[in-house]
């Protein structure tokens, strides 16, 4: 199995570039090579989806890009851009109310009180949580917390948005709505998005490219460009078709790994 170099057709400016990045956890007999020489370039305004089996290193990759962990080898460059990461777990702060959590990134930027109140309300509206601003995180359901985390990530106004299974705990309808909203925001704000999901259709619905990672160690094994015209519908035949193709490839990879 040789490493497949991602070579996107787009010609925009490289915003995230990884060059044979490896990440190893632990050391000695306890060592675990989570990522092995991953090379990847994400261009400005691109929407890249990451797919891979459970434990293959998707979250690890995001945290490396966000600068939360040190890479063990290789080079990684994001050109000092602002990064926002939506974690796999909601990780809201229990001492803040829902709107307090959403307002926090704005407070840190020094946004005026009235403005951030209003913006938080807008964002909560976007994630369909209007009227929940005064609740505490523990009073929300799992899916609601995830949506608050999304609102908080959007409040960061970052250049690069990294999302780790953001819609995993949502029902299909709410998720469809949020797909539309996310797509709109991505376009309007010219965001660069790296999006981790287990839902292949979701990946095809949203992504410009879908990148497949192998398991232990995580390597880039395939890079599917998605060319259907937007707006796409998750249950459209084109999306379903390409999703089936990618699923087959993924299935083959998981099967290979199982042997």
């Amino acid at each position, binding site marked *: 199995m040789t490493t497949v170099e991602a070579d996107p057709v787009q010609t925009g400016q490289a915003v995230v570039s990884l060059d044979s990045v490896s990440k190893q956890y632990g050391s000695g007999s306890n060592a675990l090579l989570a990522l092995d020489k991953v090379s990847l370039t994400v261009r400005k305004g691109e929407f890249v989806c990451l797919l891979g089996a459970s434990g293959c290193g998707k979250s690890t990759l995001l945290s490396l890009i966000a600068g*939360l962990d040190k890479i063990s080898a290789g080079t990684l460059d994001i050109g000092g851009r602002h990064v926002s990461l939506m974690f796999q777990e909601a990780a809201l*702060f229990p001492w803040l109310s829902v709107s307090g959590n959403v307002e926090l990134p704005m407070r840190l930027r020094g946004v005026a009180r009235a403005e951030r109140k209003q913006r938080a309300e807008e964002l909560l509206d976007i994630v369909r949580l209007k009227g929940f601003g005064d609740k*505490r995180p523990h009073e929300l359901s799992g899916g609601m917390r995830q949506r608050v985390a999304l609102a908080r990530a959007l409040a960061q106004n970052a250049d690069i948005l990294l999302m780790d299974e953001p819609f995993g705990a949502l029902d299909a309808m709410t998720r469809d709505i949020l797909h539309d909203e996310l797509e709109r925001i991505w376009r309007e704000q010219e965001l660069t998005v790296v999006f981790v999901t287990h839902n292949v259709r979701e990946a095809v619905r949203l992504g410009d490219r879908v990148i497949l990672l192998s398991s232990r160690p995580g390597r880039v094994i395939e890079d599917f460009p998605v060319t259907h015209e937007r707006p796409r519908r998750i249950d459209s035949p084109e999306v379903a078709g390409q999703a089936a193709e990618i699923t087959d490839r993924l299935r083959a990879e998981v099967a290979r790994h199982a042997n």
Partner: protein
Amino acid sequence: MPIKYPSARAGLEGVTGSLPAPVEKPDAAKDRITGLDALELGGKSEKGSLGKRFWRSAWPKLLAIGIVVLVWQIVVWAEWKPVYVLPGPATVFEDLGTLIKTGDFWDGVRVTMLRAVTGFGLAVLIGTIVGAAVSRFTPLRAAIGSLITGLQTMPSIMWFPLAILLFQLSESAILFVVVIGAAPSVANGLISGIDYVPRTWLRVGQVLGMTGFAKYRHLILPASLPSFISGLKQGWAFSWRSLMAGELLVIVPGALSIGVRMQQARDLNESSLVISFIIVVLVIGILIDVLFNAADNALRKRWGLTGS
């Protein structure tokens, strides 16, 4: 093991009967359920008049006090020790009554509390700064981390020579003893709180771009608040104990501080007065603890830690 929850169901089976069948208007149903809830949670809910709420939290205390006084009285009646060694509750409460009726006593309480509050405030300030600094800079931690606990184990009395050297016989000398007694606790509470801030939150903070002061203000301090508060509680205990010793350093004629009065009661071997002062100190300690607990409860409620 079978999971049983009789209390939940027991209370409800009786209630069910009184529930009218299908209700169309959701608002009405809501109201009714609110009513039921109030009934069901009667023992726990925060509702009820202030007086009732007070009574609910007060009766176990009163009972406890009652039992202690009773046992004490029985021991006295049994004449285990002569009354001038172990006076009965009646004598002590009489003395206590006389004591707290004097303006002098309240002047003393004022003087002492003023010192305690100032000293504790300073200790909190210094402890917080030191704790934050120590947990932030690794070499500093290696250098003085352990010293903090070391300082704490030093009996206040050993600081007297240094206090006099530095501050002569002034109020500052007392404050010095109090601060050096309490600040390490505050710092330790903060350090241990910071050390146990969940990694996920730290990572969230990093992603949100928190650095330096903002990180402390918005993440570290609120996240370590529980441990910090328990550090404050301990710090208070230390500062109060140090104060009782420290007040013997400088005696300002006029209003006699509690520490001096206590020492005098001991010097004069007036058992009844000694016990009176034990009670006074306990009561002050308990009142302060009630304040801390109020803060703690508010915090736990906000964090969603109350209820089962």
